[in-house]
């Protein structure tokens, strides 16, 4: 059967499952819409969190970046898993004990200020929208390949589907659907990896295969990879870092802290029955995430090896353009892969030297989707990967849109501006907010500030610099005042946005860059994607200094901080 037909069948079938579940569990009341009626088992919650968490960035984007960054790509692997340790120890159990719906609600109460709550809402919207832009890039790539059109058409199609999908569900639909999505995406990620690992090394576990010898030889896969990339003039795969040690440190820290500051992840821990479940939920989520994250470096290394071997089947003998495989042609249609026969010899030269290199464009975000085709795997596997990529992108986009819409309708409208609106009006407002967020993010997704994973990393940096520090100080210190928290958030996100926009342009529009004379990465060689941890340090410092010179928090707030430290007396999951 034709590949495209199989893809339609597999993708159509998985979508039917998600939508079926969403309708079956259709949200009734507003409370259910936000936190799924409380009382979700920690294993189920962990699985749903993992689906929510692993987005287009993890599924579609990350391995492609690692494949071309080598060791430097480790920042994503450590950064996007290590945050769960912080989350489990420093935030989740205490926020669950406190028992509110949203992150801004906690910040507003702990810092006894509606201004603090509003600032938190704004920070949350900035992070989430940036995050959705990254998803839109991934969705655009996946749909363009799947429909065999250009990237823009793929993106528009994706926007429409995301909208219907998110509006239909609400959290309850989303929680059960996300469990289904997790299953689809993890199978779609690991099955081709197992196939490829078997092909190359004979070991069915990609995690072990990456450290094994190639079939029929005594050469280790990674040694061969190092040798091949260096022959082409690239730097060594297993040792080349990302810019500098300091930059790698900052990048990893930004992603870790950002993990523990992203509202759509934190909100998950409001939905477990007990405080102790909040702790273990983080562990279960991490296990489900680690299955993909420990497979990703194998996917990356093996795909890089396969691409090089496709283009240069034997040393000095390059692939003839007329004989290039179908996957080449298919991806050329999307505009995300381009070749240019510079020396007119009818073959594709691949080299680190730009003047000779004829693989002129290879969008990193196509690698995971193209991977099974590159390795000549059966059509059903290729179709499954397309379905998995869409599941990852859709589930996260839906979770984020929910966080954005609940911030606007619940925190801003109901909480502050229009306290008297009815549940129905609140629900309607949240849907309008979702639609606007999709259109805005989709528009910016036409010219994203980087590859999917890079754009998402920016969102993490913004969360790291704004939300995480005040949450942590709010829990661990009795002394941080309203003024301190507000000044900290504004300073942290302000400095980070200043640095990011200076590099990428205001609202990521490249024409709107400023102070270009400073050069790139001018602050200690740290790139904008890694700057969130500097923003976090500023946030902490400003908050602590300002708190020292302003009046101490009232007695009841100090008692509240004491109270959230012990699990006993936690309210039953907040919705009943």
């Amino acid at each position, binding site marked *: 059967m034709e590949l495209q037909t199989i893809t339609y069948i597999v993708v159509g079938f998985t979508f039917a499952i998600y939508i079926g579940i969403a309708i079956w569990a259709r949200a009734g009341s507003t409370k259910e819409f936000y936190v799924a009626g409380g009382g979700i088992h920690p294993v189920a919650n962990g699985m749903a969190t993992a689906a929510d968490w692993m987005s287009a960035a993890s599924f579609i984007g990350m391995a492609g970046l690692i494949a071309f960054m080598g060791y430097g790509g480790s920042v994503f692997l450590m950064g996007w*898993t290590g945050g769960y340790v912080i989350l489990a120890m420093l935030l989740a159990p205490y926020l669950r004990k406190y028992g509110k719906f949203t992150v801004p609600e906690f910040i507003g109460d702990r810092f006894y200020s509606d201004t603090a709550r509003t600032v938190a809402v704004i920070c949350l919207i900035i992070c989430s929208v940036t995050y959705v832009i990254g998803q839109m890039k991934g969705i655009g790539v996946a749909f363009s390949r799947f429909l065999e059109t250009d990237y823009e058409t793929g993106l528009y199609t994706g926007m429409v589907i995301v909208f219907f999908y998110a509006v239909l569900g609400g959290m309850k639909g989303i929680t059960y659907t996300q469990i289904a999505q997790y299953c689809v995406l993890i199978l779609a990620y690991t099955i081709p990896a197992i196939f490829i690992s078997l092909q190359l090394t004979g070991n069915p576990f990609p995690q072990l295969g990456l450290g094994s010898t190639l079939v029929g030889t005594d050469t280790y896969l990674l040694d061969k990879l190092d040798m091949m990339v260096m022959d082409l003039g690239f730097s060594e795969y297993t*040792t080349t870092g990302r810019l500098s040690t300091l930059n790698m440190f900052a990048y990893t820290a930004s992603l870790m802290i950002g993990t523990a500051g992203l509202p759509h992840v934190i909100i998950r821990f409001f939905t477990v029955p007990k405080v102790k479940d909040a*702790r273990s939920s983080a562990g279960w989520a991490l296990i489900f995430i680690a299955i993909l994250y420990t497979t990703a470096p194998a996917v990356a290394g093996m795909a890089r090896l396969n691409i090089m071997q496709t283009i240069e089947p034997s040393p000095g003998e390059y692939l003839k353009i007329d004989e290039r495989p179908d996957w080449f042609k298919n991806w050329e249609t999307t505009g995300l892969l381009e070749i240019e026969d510079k020396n007119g010899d009818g073959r594709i030269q691949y080299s680190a030297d730009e003047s000779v290199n004829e693989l002129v464009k290879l969008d990193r975000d196509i690698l995971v989707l193209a991977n099974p085709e590159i390795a000549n795997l059966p059509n059903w596997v290729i179709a499954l990967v397309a379905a998995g990529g869409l599941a990852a992108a859709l589930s996260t986009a839906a979770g984020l849109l929910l966080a954005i819409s609940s911030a606007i309708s619940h925190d801003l409208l109901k909480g502050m501006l229009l306290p008297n609106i009815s549940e129905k009006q609140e629900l309607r407002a949240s849907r309008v907010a979702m639609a606007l967020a999709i259109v805005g993010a989709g528009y910016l997704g036409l010219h994203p500030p980087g590859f999917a994973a890079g754009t998402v990393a920016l969102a993490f940096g913004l969360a790291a610099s704004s939300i995480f520090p005040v949450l942590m100080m709010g829990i661990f210190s009795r002394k941080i005042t309203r003024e301190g928290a507000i000044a900290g958030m504004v300073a942290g996100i302000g400095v980070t946005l200043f640095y990011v926009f200076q590099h990428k342009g205001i609202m990521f529009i490249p024409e709107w860059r400023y102070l270009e004379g400073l050069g790139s990465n001018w602050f200690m060689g740290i790139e904008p994607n890694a700057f969130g941890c500097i923003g976090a340090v500023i946030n902490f410092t400003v908050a602590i200094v300002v708190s020292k010179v302003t009046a101490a928090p009232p007695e009841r707030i100090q008692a509240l901080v004491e109270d959230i430290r012990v699990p006993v007396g936690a309210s039953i999951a907040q919705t009943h």
Partner: protein
Amino acid sequence: MSNLSEKNAEEYWRRNKSLMVKLGVIWFAVSYGFGILLVDQLNAIHLGGYKLGFWFAQQGSIYTFILLVFYYTWAMGRLDKEFDVEEEE
């Protein structure tokens, strides 16, 4: 509000913090330490086809994180029992 006297609450919190610090040190060591700062030194050692520093950065740190979270959950469960601050079943 709870079954805790003030002194016990302080002790409970102190024990919790000391656990967090211990696990935090391991968390830092396997990622920032072995995976980034000491990567070149560790790369001299091989684990199959993996250079050890590279392995910590792309595999080992993640496995350790999982162990840390589950250990924390288990240890805190024990602490909650000891201080009688568990939630009612």
